[in-house]
């Protein structure tokens, strides 16, 4: 009640510095949930199958972005997009295997920016992508990162007690052992398991436990605001989650992909086959169409994993509420990219299509964001950094790395506000870089050859109002529309075409 007059005062003025003002008496914290491979298959996004009560509850406290897109649909680069606030097209960091500080040694990351502003900055679980040759960024955190596993099994038959391919990648085993056989010589682990175990048998349960422990610690020093990044691994493969989460779903009711062909007229480079998913047992290698049984099992596993993660997120939220920290904590939920659940015959991510790039994004800021609202504003991952800064009254970050995002603050204040009419994302494939402009109705992708500028670009155009499933590349039918969207793309600095690897 103490703050009510202030809140009213600021609402009347429409002042943007509510939290900054408030933080003088009671500090505003930031809690950001980074969820690996989470697409908007959530109740609050209208998914009728999904059982995501905790995320739904969280969304009811704040604003949901229904048109949010990642800047690149793969974990490592996408997390760099978030944490640097830079698009891959600005940094050239399209791939794994190299630290971003090799190119941007003095970069000020999102958490680092808050650390510099006096926040206690902590991270746990999957935040920066650790693995595939990259490690954590120690400069970002106040205390060492709490690392947990991404690839994890309990059942011996899931691995035959051998080091599996994906585990070797995610544990950076190659950085420490020179004499390992090449990754393709290592055995594949299971794509899913469903043992009857407690939640903390797996990493996300332990990450939630750690977050709860840390929140209790941080509560002891209320004048010191914190920035906490909690990274959950599921629904990333393998779908290793306790059986009870599988049992939430009747396999008969699992939604199956409605369109499984390539879009008519799509260029080959737009299509992804195999990769990642076939690094797991019993996924067939180099085969395009899986039986309905396998398709259903994989989608079931994805939903079960999402629900498991949702439960862990709920545990953290309940503790936050119990500690009465809800009222002065800004909460963000972010999925690093979407996921193909067999649509176009594609699995996992790594494309410029809707299913790989559309992400869940929501902000909760008590007193500022009207609870239970949503916005159709086209948002990008890189927008989060400047948005969070503005939310707590910090100046817009200046890098030195490129700060590409637009603050969504005006939208958070007024869900009808619009700050940009498109989103820009990219993905490299087959020697080409595909850059996409997504508007409310269309997506145009321009594939530019990265080495040979004499090769003509290839275009895709999809109309989401009439063809949400992307069944037809319309670029040849509507060249004017392609041109119009390309004009938007051309307003951006030329994308760095040589991937640094």
């Amino acid at each position, binding site marked *: 009640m103490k703050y009510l007059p202030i809140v009213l005062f600021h609402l009347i003025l429409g002042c943007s510095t509510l939290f900054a003002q408030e933080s003088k008496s009671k500090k505003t914290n930031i809690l950001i949930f980074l969820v690996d491979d989470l697409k908007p298959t959530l109740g609050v996004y209208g998914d009728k199958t999904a059982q995501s009560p905790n995320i739904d509850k969280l969304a009811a406290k704040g604003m949901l972005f229904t048109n949010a897109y990642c800047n690149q649909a793969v974990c490592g680069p996408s997390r760099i997009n978030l944490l640097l606030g830079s698009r891959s097209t600005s940094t050239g960091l399209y791939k794994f295997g190299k630290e971003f500080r090799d190119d941007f040694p003095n970069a000020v990351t999102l958490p680092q920016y808050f650390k510099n502003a006096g926040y206690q900055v902590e991270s746990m679980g999957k935040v920066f992508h650790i693995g595939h040759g990259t490690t954590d960024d120690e400069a970002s955190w106040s205390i060492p990162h709490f690392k947990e596993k991404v690839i994890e099994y309990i059942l011996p038959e899931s691995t035959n007690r051998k080091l599996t391919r994906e585990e070797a990648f995610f544990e950076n085993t190659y950085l420490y052992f020179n004499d390992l056989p090449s990754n393709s010589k290592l055995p594949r682990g299971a794509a899913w398991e469903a043992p009857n175990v407690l939640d903390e048998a797996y990493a996300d349960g332990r990450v939630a436990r750690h977050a709860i422990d840390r929140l209790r610690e941080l509560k002891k020093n209320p004048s010191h605001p914190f920035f906490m990044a909690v990274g959950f691994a599921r629904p990333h493969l393998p779908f290793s989650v306790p059986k009870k989460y599988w049992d939430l779903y009747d396999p*008969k009711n*699992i*939604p*199956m*992909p*409605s369109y*499984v*062909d*390539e879009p008519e007229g799509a260029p*080959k480079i737009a*299509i992804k086959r195999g990769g990642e998913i076939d690094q797991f047992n*019993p996924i*067939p290698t*180099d*085969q*395009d*169409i*899986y*039986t*309905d*049984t*396998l*398709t*259903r099992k994989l989608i079931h596993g994805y939903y079960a994993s999402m629900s498991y993660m949702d439960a862990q997120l709920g545990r953290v939220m309940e503790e936050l509420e119990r500690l009465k920290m809800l009222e002065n904590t800004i909460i963000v939920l972010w999925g690093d990219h979407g996921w193909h659940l*067999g649509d176009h*015959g594609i699995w996992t991510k790594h494309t410029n299509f809707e299913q790989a790039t559309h992400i869940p994004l929501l902000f909760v800021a008590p007193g500022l964001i009207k609870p239970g609202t949503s916005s159709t504003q086209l948002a990008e991952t890189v927008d989060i950094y400047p948005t969070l800064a503005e939310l707590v009254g910090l100046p817009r970050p200046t890098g030195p790395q490129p700060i590409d995002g637009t603050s969504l603050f005006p939208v958070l204040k007024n869900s009808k506000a619009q700050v940009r009419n498109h989103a820009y994302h990219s993905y490299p494939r087959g020697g080409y870089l595909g850059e996409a402009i997504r508007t409310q109705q269309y997506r145009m992708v321009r594939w530019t050859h990265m080495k040979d500028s004499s090769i003509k670009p290839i275009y895709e155009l999809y109309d989401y109002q009439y063809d949400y499933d992307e069944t037809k590349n319309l670029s040849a039918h509507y060249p004017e529309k392609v041109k119009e969207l390309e004009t938007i793309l051309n307003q951006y600095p030329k994308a760095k075409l040589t991937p640094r690897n």
Partner: protein
Amino acid sequence: MKNTFFVKKQRKSILKLFLIVSISFLFNQVTFSQNWKPAGEKIKTRWAKNVTPDNVWQEYPRPQFERAEWINLNGLWEYSVLKTSQAQPKKFQGKILVPFCVESSLSGVMGEVKGDDRIWYKRQFEIPANWNQKNVILNFEAVDYAATIYVNGALVGFHKGAYDRFSFDITPYLNPKGSQELIVSVVDPSSAGVQPRGKQQMPQEGIWYTPVSGIWQTVWMEAVSKEAFLREVKMEPDINKKAISVIPMLSEPLRPEYKVKAVVSFKGNVVAQTVIPADVKSVIEISNPQLWSPDAPYLYDLNLTLINAKGEVIDTVASYFGMRKINLGEFNGYKYIFLNNQPLFQYGTLDQGWWPDGLYTPPSDEAMKYDIEITKKMGFNMIRKHVKIEPDRWYYHCDKMGLMVWQDMPSGMVVIPENGQIKASSRVQKVPRIGGTDLNQRSEDAAQFESELRRMIDIHYNSPSIVVWVPFNEGWGQYATRRIANMVKELDPTRLVNAASGWADYPCGDIYDIHSYSAKVLIPQTSSGRASVLGEYGGLGYPIDGHLWDSKMRNWGYGTYHSEKDLMNAYKSQFEQIVDIKNTKGLSAAVFTQTTDVEGEVNGLMTYDREVIKFPIEKMKEMHSVLFKK
């Protein structure tokens, strides 16, 4: 004959001509031949011009169960198309050439039959004097869809089902001598009903073609002993045990004194001879069996003689069989289709069996054989007979020429009207391609579908060419998939079951089948515990002027090409992918869409009129030979 006679005479003198024309005019009242001609101006095949009311479909219609004494009733009949509410007509509207359906050109009618129409047929016939001591069986090879039969004004029987043979013993209805009257009335809901009807649709467009109504295969009579006769025979070859099992079934339950003499011969030489009981399975050993395969389609003749208690021969039937085995085996770690205990890639065409002049009915036996011959010559070893069941002679030719057959059950599904109207955009009753849940079929419709499915299996059980049953295609009318797949397997454990070709897949049957019409041929999963196949691919459209069914309609393929070279390049590119998937991904079979253009779907190896072969035969054969190299 009368026709020819008149024509010759006409040349002789004008006077005679005048006289004869007058006579012939009078004759017209009783002789129909003069006023039949193919209807309409659509393209036709070369065989159409040789069709006459006298020579139409004269071949024996049941080659795997042949009896000597028979009379063919094909030819010009009277017909009327009335509303279902109308009574039997006294005067008929015109003449129709049986066995061509009302909608076809060769029927001479080319009419339309709607759901509330009834076709009436009438003809006179006579029973030869030497059949007096016999019973007369009237056989209909196929009538689409529900037929009611009257002989001399009496109701003989009723039958539903567009594709299966039905027979009635008409002896009690016959006049002691002289002319006999046969009347057939037929209703056909076509695509407005849920009965199996394959690709017949009103209106026709895209992959759906002109409906077929009424009699569309041979109508005939045969004479059998009043005492008893052989009703059917069920045969199962066993190449491992070098034997054929035979169950001769009789028209009547008889005392065990009745015996069946079975004589097996190969190339005219008797290789086994035995006397076996009726209605019981007997095993006849075939030493050193010559196996049936596409490369060497050896057939054994089987002669069955029914001998009564007095030792008299009362029936004789000629049949044949092939010694072959089809099953799933393990090959290179994959589940694979085996023929005669060896892996053999099956490369086939999607064959719709549609004709511009006869629709469901080929203009002649020779024409029907031609499609199979061209397929064989191009180096295919299999034909997927697509949602149609052919006349028995079609299977006979495949048995003889050595083509393996995947036999689809004709789909049964309603075209769902939009705002009460059937439009081109209307959707058929089907389930989604991926994760489709079965339709809920009304029990009567299901009973009818399953009865017709069973008839298909039973009637063709002995044909060596048929190796796979396909109960459902692309989700059309698909229901109770697992139960139907299991039912088919139990009805016929000697063949493979491809439960749902290209669509709504369930873990049942022997084959996992996907359809891929993209330039990049999709690779089916091979670890499903079943053999993996591409049940359809290709669909390369190449419209050729002068050979189009309707040049004004959308002449369509899954991709359209405008030169032989582009077409061949597209084919080559997809074929090379097939070879690669076969060699490296355990693919068991592939089916190219399709044998011929059909109406507006112009993706055939040949044009609809069979005049232009779009792919060079020799080149195709050579290309395809890599699939079969050991």
